[in-house]
């Protein structure tokens, strides 16, 4: 059976001349797991929302879109609601009611089922997802990952035939994201529900998907198996290739005829096969001399902190120094106290004991950029942070300069909430930079950014370092930290466990490290970045030849 079928489908937003979707021809058979990828603004969300008429944006569409052989628009509202499930990005904002059981039953109540049926269905879903123990809890006691799982479960209680997910893991930490995707895979594998998922993290999704569709400016540019799609992206040098799984990227950059690996395990097998014939001659990347920067921007000594007087200590005997004019990344698990440590450096929290020495003015970019927006346009919002004594011309100049730096000049007169997630992040960064900090503190700055903007963002950080700013960031994004940080520190249980130059740091970890490092462990000694593995492979190959 075909679930969805697009035929020459086009869609144009009101007041726009360029179509947002152009000549889409897709057939989605029952039971497939499809990953829909593309950069921000490529039209993937627009495409996904076309499949759920209640959420479809206003605009003009041409061509046909069928659901089980019948035009989707002609399906009853009831069928559209029950048969097509839709999970959105924000775990928080999707939850409507105050109790877990009420949330699970919300859709079934809308469909008008009697209590007996609802009781059975919610019970089934709760046991399928293993969330029975939450059943009577208040939703506000759940973590972000649990909330998103609840959103998924409350959609699944309606027993949809197709499940659409719009970047469902972009707000989750890596562990919660993996759990969530595993649950989606389980739904697909055990219930045969058709899954369409848009994602930025191709690393996690590629091994799960049966088929990958890549969109670029509203057009389908690839529609193939993950391996084929990845290969195609690498061949045409598409910016989306930056988001591909690391083994794939490394395989693509090294001349070889072996099959393309998807996961780290396959990557190791590939590397073994690739290097087998000869003995491995080059094993290590030459160590760059560590620039010894003794100037410290921030020094914490023996700091202790707890949110409530009687509460547990979140920061325990933390000693940490941040070198000036460098990028320092603090990585570590959820709830380890990383963000709290950042808050201490920013002066938001005062430690109960210990010394805090901050040399310069700090400014913190919070995780949620929306917590900074006060005014009706970005320009007004930014102007609010400027010194009132400046002349208008000076103010304008400053605003323009900052807008260029964070690349949102054309958006200055828009309402902050009319911007996309990535643009909001940039607007917030601009606002923070306008306070002219010497030390820029960033809390999960790459969350929800697409792979191509991450590169731009890294360049921006480098520019700031060049102008004398110190950057400290807290992140779950190991790949980003390994690629761009000067120093890294691992946070665990309220304190620093290990720290050092980025390469030495990640090479020293065996689990909490990059995919490239995990893939090349045993073959190479200190290859941490993708480029390291590629360089060593090529070196060994050249010697062979």
């Amino acid at each position, binding site marked *: 059976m075909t679930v969805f079928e697009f035929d020459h489908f086009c869609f144009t937003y009101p007041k726009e001349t360029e179509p947002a979707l152009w000549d889409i021809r897709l057939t989605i058979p029952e039971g497939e797991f499809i990953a829909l990828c593309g950069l921000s603004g490529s039209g993937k969300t627009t495409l996904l929302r076309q499949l759920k008429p209640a959420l479809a944006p206003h605009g003009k569409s041409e061509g046909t879109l069928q659901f089980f052989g019948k035009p989707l628009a002609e399906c009853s509202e009831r069928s559209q609601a029950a048969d097509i499930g839709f999970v959105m990005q*924000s775990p*928080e904002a999707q939850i*409507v009611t*105050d109790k877990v059981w009420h949330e699970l039953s919300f859709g079934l109540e*809308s469909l*008008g089922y009697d209590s007996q049926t609802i009781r059975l269905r919610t019970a089934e879903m709760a046991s399928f997802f293993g969330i029975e123990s939450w059943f009577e809890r208040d939703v506000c006691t759940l973590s972000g990952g649990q909330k998103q799982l609840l959103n998924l479960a409350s959609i699944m209680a309606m027993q949809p035939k197709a499940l659409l997910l719009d970047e469902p893991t972009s707000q989750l930490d890596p562990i919660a994201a993996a759990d969530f995707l595993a649950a989606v895979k389980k739904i697909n594998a055990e219930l045969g529900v058709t899954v369409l998922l848009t994602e930025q993290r191709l690393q996690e999704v590629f091994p799960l998907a049966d088929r990958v569709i890549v969109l670029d400016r509203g057009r389908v540019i690839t529609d193939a198996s993950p391996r084929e799609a990845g290969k195609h992206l690498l061949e045409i040098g598409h910016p989306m290739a930056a988001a591909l799984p690391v083994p794939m990227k490394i395989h693509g950059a090294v001349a070889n005829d072996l099959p393309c690996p998807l996961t780290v395990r396959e990557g190791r097998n590939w590397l073994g096969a690739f290097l087998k014939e000869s003995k491995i001659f080059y094993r290590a990347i030459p160590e760059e001399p560590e620039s010894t920067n003794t100037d410290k921007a921030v020094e914490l000594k023996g700091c202790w902190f707890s949110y409530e007087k009687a509460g547990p200590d979140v920061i325990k005997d933390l000693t940490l120094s941040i070198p000036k004019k460098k990028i320092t990344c603090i990585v570590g698990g959820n709830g380890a106290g990383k963000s709290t440590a950042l808050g201490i450096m920013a*002066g938001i929290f005062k430690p109960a004991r210990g010394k805090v020495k901050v040399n310069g003015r700090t400014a913190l970019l919070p995780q949620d950029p929306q917590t900074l927006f*006060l005014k009706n346009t970005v320009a007004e919002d930014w102007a609010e942070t400027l010194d009132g004594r400046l002349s208008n011309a000076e103010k304008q100049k400053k605003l323009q300069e900052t807008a260029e730096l964070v690349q949102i000049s054309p958006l200055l007169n828009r309402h902050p909430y009319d911007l996309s997630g990535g643009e909001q992040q940039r607007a917030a960064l601009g606002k*923070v930079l306008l306070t002219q900090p010497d030390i820029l503190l960033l809390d999960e700055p790459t969350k929800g950014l697409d792979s191509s903007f991450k590169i731009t963002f890294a360049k921006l950080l480098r520019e700031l370092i060049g102008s004398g700013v110190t950057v400290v960031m807290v992140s779950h994004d190991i790949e980003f930290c390994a690629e761009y940080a000067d120093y890294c520190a691992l946070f665990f249980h309220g304190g620093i466990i290990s720290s050092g130059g980025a390469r030495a740091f990640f090479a020293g970890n065996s689990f909490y490290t990059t995919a490239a490092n995990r893939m090349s462990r045993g073959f190479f000694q200190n290859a941490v970045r993708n480029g390291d593995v590629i360089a060593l492979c090529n070196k060994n190959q050249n010697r062979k030849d």
Partner: protein
Amino acid sequence: MRNRFAELHPAVLFLYFTAVILFSMFFMHPVFLAISLFCGFACSAALHLGKTLRFSFRFLLPMLLVMTAVNPLLNHRGATILLYVNDNPVTREALLYGFSSACMFSAVLLWFSCWNTVITSDKLVYLFGSVAPSLSLLFSMVLRFVPRFKAQIRTIENAQKGIGKGADQGSIFIRAKNGMNILSILTTWALENGITTADSMRARGYGLAGRTSFSIYAFNKRDKTALIVLIVMLFPVFYGAFTGENNIRYYPSLAVKPISFVSNLVYAAYFLLCAFPLLFNAAIEVKEHDSI
């Protein structure tokens, strides 16, 4: 100890508290007042002893004295004059009426303190669910948003502190302004994020005709027994109300119906009604103890 009474079906609890609170408000007969005040205190103490004691001694007792003293100064009806204050008579009836009113008020407040512990928000949301589904959903959504907004206020506060605009930074005017900015940021955030919530509702079929309202509360045998017992006890009390057993006349002079066999029966029923939570808990305790 588990409070078995509080585990009864919300409809039974709602009926019980509505009856007891309304009776306490209207029956000014000394026996009834005494029963209601005593049982209200006992039930509240059974739920939370310390809080009840503190509330009674710090608030109720002083109020009792003040109200008893104030009423005769404002109200000069009554036949038995005790003394004159500023040429105005202070009557025994007015004094007693003030005392009774204060007792009534205390009893009502004590019963409300039980209500607030036993009738939790989800029970009320459920009760409204069958009569007023939209209103009940609105309650549930507000209850969902309140803790979320409180947490967001803290997040915004910290974020603003991070760029030097906290509610504890700068002069008092700047602080007040920063504090209001936090509320303003919260409002925009809440209204805009609400659109996603609304989308999530529509994605799950909100707005289709024939919405039902589900709850995890089931009406079991124990609820049925409790309901029957309650109704049986309500009858004599109502009978008493209509025949005037529960009434008292304060002005011009005190007058109550003489105590009779019937009035004793009504008193007993009212006592059983008011003490129902305690008796119910005790009965369940005995029953379950025996069955082990």
